[in-house]
Every structure is written in C-alpha cells, then in structure tokens.
C-alpha cells in the first residue's frame, strides 16, 4: 500500500518512514550495550524484605524507638544544611563574574567567551560526588570538603544557567548606558543585573535543592552529614537507614515545594 491513486488519476507515493531506521539503530545499540550489563539471580521478594526492614521498627523496637532515632539526626542534618547552603552561595557568587565573561552579548570577542565556556563545560562534566572527593583529599572528611566540592558543583551549573539568562536579556538599556560613556561593568550593573536578578535568585534556590539532593550520596565518600547516617548504618541497622531516608525525603520535598512556590512568584 505504498502507492495511492486518487479518483482524478493523481498518484501519491507514501514516503518511507524514518522511524524504522531509528528503531533499528536503537535495537542494535541495545544489543551491543547489553554485553556490559550482567546480572545473576534476581530475587524480587528481597526488595519487599528490605523495604520492611527500612520502614518498620526492628523486631525488638517499637515505633517510638523508630521515630526517636529521627531526632538524633539533628546534628548530621545541620551539617548537611550548612554545606549545601555555603556551597550554593559561594558557587553562585563566584559564578557571576564568570557568567559575565561567558556571555557573547557582553563580551563581543570570541577569544574570551569561548575559552570560558569550554572551562565551564569541563567543570560541569564532573559529578558532584567526585568534586567532593577532591575536597576530601585536600581537607579531610569534614564539612569543609563538602563546601568545597558543592561550591565547585554549584559554580558550574550557576555559571552556565546565568550566562544563558544574560544572553536573553533586552540589550537596549545596556547600549543606552554604553552610549552615555558607562564602561562594561557599570552598564552591566545598571542594565543587565536588574533584569536577571529574579532569575538569579530562583536559580540559587534550585541549586540549593540540588545540593541537598546530592548530600545523600556524599556519605559514601565519608563526608559528614545525613548521607553518612545512611551509609554508616548499612547493613547493620536498616531501620535507621529508613528513618534517615524519610527525613531526607521530607526535607527535599519541602524545599522542592518552597522553591517551586518562590520561583513562581519571582518570575
């Protein structure tokens, strides 16, 4: 049925649908990639067992014990909030001058913004956990390593999002200021900053959320905080893991809701 003849005698040929090529490529890739994914012995019932271990009290404990453990997590929680906050703030502040240099509408010269963007792309490829691990190598497993790693992580994301925001601003006020003799920085301050400020604040909240989310994994490289309460209790006390997970989940959910609300109001 590739050829149709209409009543007026016109012949219509149905074009070949490219989706088949795409599907064939996907299947070939899947077969190749399948070589790297091995597995043995799938026991799905174990998932139920572990969930029960995590989200119900231990056999000798009561629900009271289970929830009272959450209150002992106050200190790690504070540490996590500290490093997420400091990381977001430091990274985002450092990102401003770099975003300024990376935006093509302000730096007219390719020789400046292309290298800066390449550097930003390089930083963004590194997962937050690896950046924190570098921090751990330098200053040990305290909060400071988390702050260093998360600052770098926040810096990469913020600089990228910010220069993209700067490139979409209305350039007329900027040009008007430049024509009155203002230099680049003055023009940026009075013409671009007021335009991007709401976006910047909303990105800042978003990055804080990302950092809190990243903190769950940081325990695995030994960094203090809520992530360590999770990784330290494996495999002995899964009920404590569950309690910490619940706390983290509620925390992220709250921040997510707050951030959606605030971002809606800012933009």
């Amino acid at each position, binding site marked *: 049925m590739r050829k149709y003849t209409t009543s007026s005698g016109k012949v219509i040929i149905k074009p070949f649908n490219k989706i088949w090529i795409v599907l064939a490529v*996907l299947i070939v*890739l899947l077969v190749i990639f399948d070589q790297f994914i091995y597995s043995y012995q799938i026991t799905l019932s174990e998932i139920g067992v572990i969930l029960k271990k995590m989200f119900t009290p231990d056999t000798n404990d009561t629900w009271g014990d289970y929830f009272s453990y959450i209150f002992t997590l106050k200190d790690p929680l504070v540490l996590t909030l500290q490093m997420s906050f400091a990381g977001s703030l430091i990274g985002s502040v450092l990102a401003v001058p770099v975003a300024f240099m990376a935006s093509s509408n302000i730096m007219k010269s390719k020789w400046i913004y292309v290298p800066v963007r390449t550097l930003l792309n390089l930083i963004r490829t590194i997962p937050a956990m690896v950046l924190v691990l*570098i921090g751990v190598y330098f200053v040990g497993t305290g*909060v400071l390593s988390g702050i260093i790693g998360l600052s770098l992580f926040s810096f990469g994301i913020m600089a990228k999002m910010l220069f993209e925001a700067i490139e979409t601003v209305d350039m007329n006020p900027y040009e008007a200021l430049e024509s009155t003799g203002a230099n680049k920085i003055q023009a940026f301050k009075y013409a671009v900053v007021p335009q991007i400020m709401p976006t910047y604040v909303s990105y800042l909240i978003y990055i804080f959320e990302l950092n809190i989310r990243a903190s769950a994994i940081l325990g695995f490289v030994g960094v203090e905080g809520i992530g360590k309460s999770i990784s330290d209790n494996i495999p002995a006390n899964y009920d404590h893991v569950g309690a910490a997970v619940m706390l983290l989940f509620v925390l992220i959910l709250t921040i997510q809701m707050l951030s959606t609300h605030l971002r809606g109001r800012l933009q």
Partner: protein
Amino acid sequence: MSKLENVLKKEPRRWIMNLVFAIAMILALIYSFSGSSINILRLQTVGIQFKLMLRGFSEINWNFLIGTGLYDFDEGIIYLALQTLSIAFTGTLIGSVLAIPFAFLSSKKIVGKFSKIGITLITFIRVFPEIILVLILVKGFGMTPLACVITIGLHSIGMLGKMFSEVIDNMDDGPIEALDAVGANTWQKIRYGIFPQIIPDLSSIALYRLDINVRSASILGIVGTTAGGFGAILSLAALFVDWRTLAAVLVVIVVLVLTVDAISSYLRRKLV
C-alpha cells in the same frame, strides 16, 4: 534644590533592605563554616596535596586506563566508561517507555482534574534520591549493573513524565479534530494525530535525560563493588588518597560526558 535631586530623593531606599539581606547571608555563611575545623596544619598540607594532585595527573597509568598491558580490557577504566554508557542508555530507554503512561496520567488534557494524582506521583518519584533507590534495588537484582539500569529507569520517570506531560498538554488539537471529521478510529487518531506531533519533542527530552543519566550512572555503582560504572573504583579511592586513580577516572568521565553531550545536542538540533 534642583528638580533632579528631588526626584532622586523619592527613590525608595532599597539599599537598607539589601544591606540587611547581605548581612543575614554573610552571617549564615559564617555559621555554615562553624562545623568545619580550619587549622594551620591543614592549610599547610594543602600545598603538598596540590603537588600530589599535579603528579597524579601527570603520571596517569595509561595501561590501567585503556585496559592493556598488565590489565585485561574488562579491568580497565574504558571498560567502566562503556558500562556506564550502557547503563545510562538502557536506563533512559526503559525510563522513557515507562514515563509515557505516567505522562498521560498527569496531563490535564487527557485526564482533566485527576491530573493532580499523576503529578503528585511523579513528584514523589523525582524527589526520591537515586542512591537510596539503588540501595533498595540491589537487594532484588543483586550487586549488578542491572540494578543500576532499573534505578536509572525508575528515577527517570520523575523528570521525563513531567516534561512529557507538558508536551502532551501543549499539543495542537487541530489534527485530531480533522481526523475525527474524516472518521478515523481511536488508534488512527493516536497514530496520525498524536504521534507525529509529540515524538520529536519526546525524543529530544529523552536525549537530554541521557546526558543527565550518564553523569548519575557513573557514580551509582558506589553502593557495591560489582554494581558497575566508576562507583566501585571511586569508593576505593575514597578510603585513602589516591590521586593517580582519581585522575584517570576524571579524564575518562570528562571525555565520556563531553562525547555524549556532543552527540545528544547534535541529535536534538536535528530533531527540532
């Protein structure tokens, strides 16, 4: 007093609020550092550590990186990179397929005010940390890359479902009405009215998610020694300072992510 000065005086005193805000931020920042112990001894070792880092990067063990010489190919870091890519690709594919029903469930256009249920479900999936999900799933699927694949697949539903449902909500009703008018049945309406409209957008979103998933697949394996990706090697490197391994892993991660980024953004440009 000139007119201009009068106008200037009427300007709201924003600087007071700004100052209060800035001071609050700085105080919070200082408080954030209170948990970390900064001492002279530590600052002195930073310089040494920096030298060690540079040495680590200049003495990368290329045999270990590529998997030649003393090492088998499946012991090298390139193998881990390919494994990471496999996990991310398969996971994204699974996630994209699973996200479609969720997207329809949370689309206002399809289910009306019941969309709240779907949206809440998707938000919960998105918020649940991946690393916890993989911790739970390794119990069922074993300490294997398969557990990571399933984790990535399930976690991707969160973002993909949300973005897919936005695509469906922004769909043009025209073609569907036209098909209705010529007497098409439901399947024909989906095939010729909905698919051609949403498939390019859906693929573009899935490719974007592939970028993200390559980054997360590279570290998910940290939950166990045989779970795939760079996780196992990184957790070993976390036990003691091992710049050479970290440098090799970093080089490979950077190359891998940049390559996938380039391919995916090229394909996305062709799609849109």
